[in-house]
């Protein structure tokens, strides 16, 4: 028997497919962040004022805070099941670069939890009085922001997977790192609304995203290797 070694890209694709298949069978868990996002943003007009011109002032910020918390909600369980049933052990031993496999897993996680937030944001934003002219900037900023958050969260989740009740620790680790995203993201929306060019904050968001994309896999694989030592 001569075995053909799986190319790394194909292996990463398998990890991605596997998580999609699993999510399809457990869709209720996957839908949770999206429901949280919609519920939180609809509560703001009820609690403050139904006056759209007043809501418009805070709308961008509200959408961003809700998206941030919603993605955090889904992060804690990211690696837990795989570490507990020994799957990550096999990934470490697969002879494939671990960072790519973990990045594929995070990508699947983003498609399932981050992308729906981006797609829903125009509808949610309209409820908060955001004009159609900011839809593009809102979605683009969230696209970069949730992507970065998934990677940062992946590092945090990999570090805390061995810790019992790691969710508090995870929030403490990830939230400070997410602050620049929140600031630049809501600033981009506000600038677009005021008629300024939002290019500056968007470029900064993109820079942070690419930094996370390039360094994240290294950090995640180091953290997971420590987690499987026990």
């Amino acid at each position, binding site marked *: 028997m001569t*075995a*053909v070694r799986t190319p790394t890209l194909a292996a990463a694709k398998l990890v991605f*497919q596997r998580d999609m298949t699993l999510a399809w*069978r457990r869709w209720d868990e996957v839908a949770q962040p999206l429901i949280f996002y919609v519920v939180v943003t609809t509560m703001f007009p009820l609690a403050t004022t139904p006056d759209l011109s007043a809501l418009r002032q805070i709308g961008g910020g509200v959408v961003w805070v809700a998206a941030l918390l919603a993605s955090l909600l889904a992060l804690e369980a990211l690696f837990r099941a795989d570490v507990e049933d020994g799957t990550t*052990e*096999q990934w470490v031993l697969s002879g494939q670069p671990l960072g790519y496999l973990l990045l594929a897993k995070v990508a699947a996680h983003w498609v399932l939890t981050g992308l729906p937030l981006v797609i829903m944001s125009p509808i949610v934003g309209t409820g908060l009085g955001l004009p159609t002219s900011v839809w593009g900037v809102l979605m683009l900023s969230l696209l970069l922001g949730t992507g970065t958050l998934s990677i940062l969260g992946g590092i945090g989740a990999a570090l805390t997977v061995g810790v019992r009740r790691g969710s508090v620790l995870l929030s403490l680790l990830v939230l400070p790192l997410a602050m620049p995203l929140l600031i630049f993201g809501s600033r981009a929306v506000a600038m677009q609304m005021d008629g300024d060019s939002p290019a500056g904050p968007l470029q900064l968001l993109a820079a942070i995203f690419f930094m996370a994309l390039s360094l994240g896999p290294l950090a995640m694989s180091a953290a997971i290797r420590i987690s499987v030592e026990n």
Partner: protein
Amino acid sequence: MAVDGAVFEAREINAWRGDRHILRDVSFSLRPGEFLKVTGPNGVGKTTLLRVICGLLPAETGELWWRGKSVRGRRDEFNFELGHLGHLNSLKGDLTARENLKFLAGLRTTLTAQAIDATLDRVGILSRGDLPARSLSAGQKRRLALARLLLADAALWILDEPVTNLDTAGIRLVEELIVDHVEHGGLAIAAAHQRLLDDAPCLRSLELEP
């Protein structure tokens, strides 16, 4: 001090777990066609030794040699030739038996549907191929984990209590698989406290003492 023909060598492995010095100067070498059985009472460090070989646990001192070169710095190359069956079966309950193999064994080698079916047949659970792994019995899950090991097509097998949960036919199957593997030039290291291939010519023993 290299032993003639040895492809795998462990040299003076020392490992601690917490403040306990578990492995003390463990050395052995293995030639193709040999099966090393690691024995000893519970807690003596059998699993620790296997995890050190896999690189899942760091050893304090000592070195592993594979095909005449130190494993250090060439982990991914070594891991590709290493098949590991641990305490955990590494199965996803929500995936079917076939999907479990496709998504985990497929990371190492490119699999065809025929190869998966042939391997499921070999471990005797072909008829369960499309059932979620959750619904398999403990012994069938172990057989599925064995199928994953077979599909990995690795030269060196690391087996941690391979016959856990298996019936007598299952134990015989594991013995057959190991003999077949070493007869084709493979190597196997297993931790076991049950009887396992006790009279086979390929057997070598390593007894760990507390």
